[in-house]
């Protein structure tokens, strides 16, 4: 009976969800290419060759470094903005809370492709962003065509698109922090900042852990921004691991693409595990 309830889900989940994960793992140790799709018996087992080929490829190494750059800058930036907004909306203001929440959340629901049309234009050398910078006397770079500025440009865009999610998670978390604790500390003469640091932040630790893990999982998969904005360029400065895997898929190198994606899976599993341990240890 129970399996009757589960069977439609299990059938679809096994075929289109679980099986591809194992298939991808096994492809990563073969030399399968797009030509072998209909003749699976001509595929050879190559052990870890794809993995060593990956790390011997300077573009892949670059992709790993770019992904780390994106994660290391993007995650803290997103979290700080999200937390600051959540605190401001939770206890700093009384009016128009809902309006701010909806407005700040809006980028989350929009399609990256549609958003890219606008951001490509904003980032033009004479676009809106550089006009704003010029107003305060800064000569802005050619964001998307300068290898030094392409990644910061994509990080800014990704932060814009994502901070609404941790913001509402932090808001939910802040509602469970008893206001009396805060008030008691303030009456004992603690400054707002001090009360925030020694009461709110520690009580928010479980929420922070969830946010950090969720952001790690999604930021490590960094793909859509380079795909729609820069095609990985200029000079591979925005190629990410996912984008590299996608490109290899496009070239027909299915084995190599699968191996690259498994490097990503490993990184995601490791980082989630480490974060879990660190936050656990501090509780």
């Amino acid at each position, binding site marked *: 009976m129970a399996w009757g*309830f589960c069977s439609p889900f299990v059938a679809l989940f096994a075929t289109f*969800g679980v099986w*591809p994960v194992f298939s991808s793992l096994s492809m990563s140790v073969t030399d399968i290419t797009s030509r072998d799709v209909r003749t699976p018996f001509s595929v050879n087992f190559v052990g870890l060759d794809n993995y060593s080929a990956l790390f011997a490829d300077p573009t892949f190494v670059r992709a790993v470094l770019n992904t780390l750059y994106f994660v290391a800058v993007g995650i803290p930036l997103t979290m700080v903005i999200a937390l600051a907004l959540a605190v401001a909306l939770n206890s700093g203001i009384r009016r128009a809370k809902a309006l*701010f929440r909806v407005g700040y959340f809006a980028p989350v629901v929009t399609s990256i492709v549609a958003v890219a049309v606008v951001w490509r234009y904003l980032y033009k050398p004479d676009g809106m962003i550089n006009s704003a910078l010029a107003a305060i006397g800064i000569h802005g770079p050619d964001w998307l065509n300068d290898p030094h500025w392409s990644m910061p440009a994509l990080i800014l865009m990704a932060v814009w698109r994502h901070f609404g999610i941790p913001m509402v998670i932090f808001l939910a978390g802040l509602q469970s922090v008893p206001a009396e604790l805060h008030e008691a500390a303030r009456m004992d003469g603690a400054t707002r900042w001090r009360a925030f640091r020694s009461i709110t932040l520690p009580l928010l630790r479980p929420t922070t852990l969830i946010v950090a893990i969720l952001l790690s999982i999604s930021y490590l998969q960094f793909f859509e921004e380079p795909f729609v904005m820069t095609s990985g360029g200029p000079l591979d400065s925005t190629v990410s691991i996912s984008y590299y895997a996608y490109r290899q898929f496009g070239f027909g190198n*299915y084995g190599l693409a699968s191996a690259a994606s498994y490097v990503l899976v490993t990184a995601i599993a490791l980082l989630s595990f480490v974060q879990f341990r660190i936050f656990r240890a501090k509780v």
Partner: protein
Amino acid sequence: MATMTARTVPADRAAGAPRSTRTARTLLYGTLILGLLATLAPFAWMFLGSVKPTGEIVAHPSTWLPDSPTLVNFDRLLSKQNFGLYFFNSSLVAMACVMGNLLFCSMAGYALAKIEFAGKRVLFSLVLTMLIIPGVTTFVPLFVLVSNMGLSNSYLGLILPFLVTPLGVFLMRQFVHDIPDSLVEAARLDGAGEVRTFLSVILPLCRPALATLAILTFLAQWNNFLWPLVVAQTEEHYTLPVALALFSVGANGTNYGLLLAGAVTVVTPIILLFLVLQKHFIQGIANTGIK
């Protein structure tokens, strides 16, 4: 709050707040408003630009408000670029996935939460594991699989891989789990079979979870990009994001009026839905952390 005996009331909440607190509050509102304007500026530019002729969009110095508002971009999008069809395709795929997830995930969620059976634990841990597997990992074998089934460039190929999601089952299982067992047992004592119990007891109680799941699925599918880009190989199966992406790298890449009108077409239905159902959207995403 109106009590004026300070000390029991935090200073800044009392009516006669000190000047420094009021200044701080004004500053905070100012910052929040500036931040909000910056956050929404890309949307404003998108909507205003879509009703400008292209010449006006690329003009220097550029202005925010259109000098001569026009719907010519939308007209051309519908008459020459087939965006009506892409809109239909996007809606069809998203609605089919919503239906599939609502039905199949609630069934499986009920079994996982309220029925004991062999293999239950293994199945649930598989669901949890799949929640963190990145899409790019399953992407290549999924494409090979779908092509070998002869489903590439078809509606089925677009829909089947997303007809159920681990997130959907996880969401439903957690929700059904919190429904008191006594309700289920009462139904069983009244002689209701599992199917009756599911349909007349569980499903009606699940309405909030079903609403969340419907919204999350619709959002994910409406905006889904990578999979449709690979599977839809000819125009008649393009979804809106695919059409817009290919359109923007093609010969029309500099036709900003058309591009912005296309972007507006993709974004507007979701924004409207979001404005109407904002509580569900925000709650759903806050609870799952996934969009």
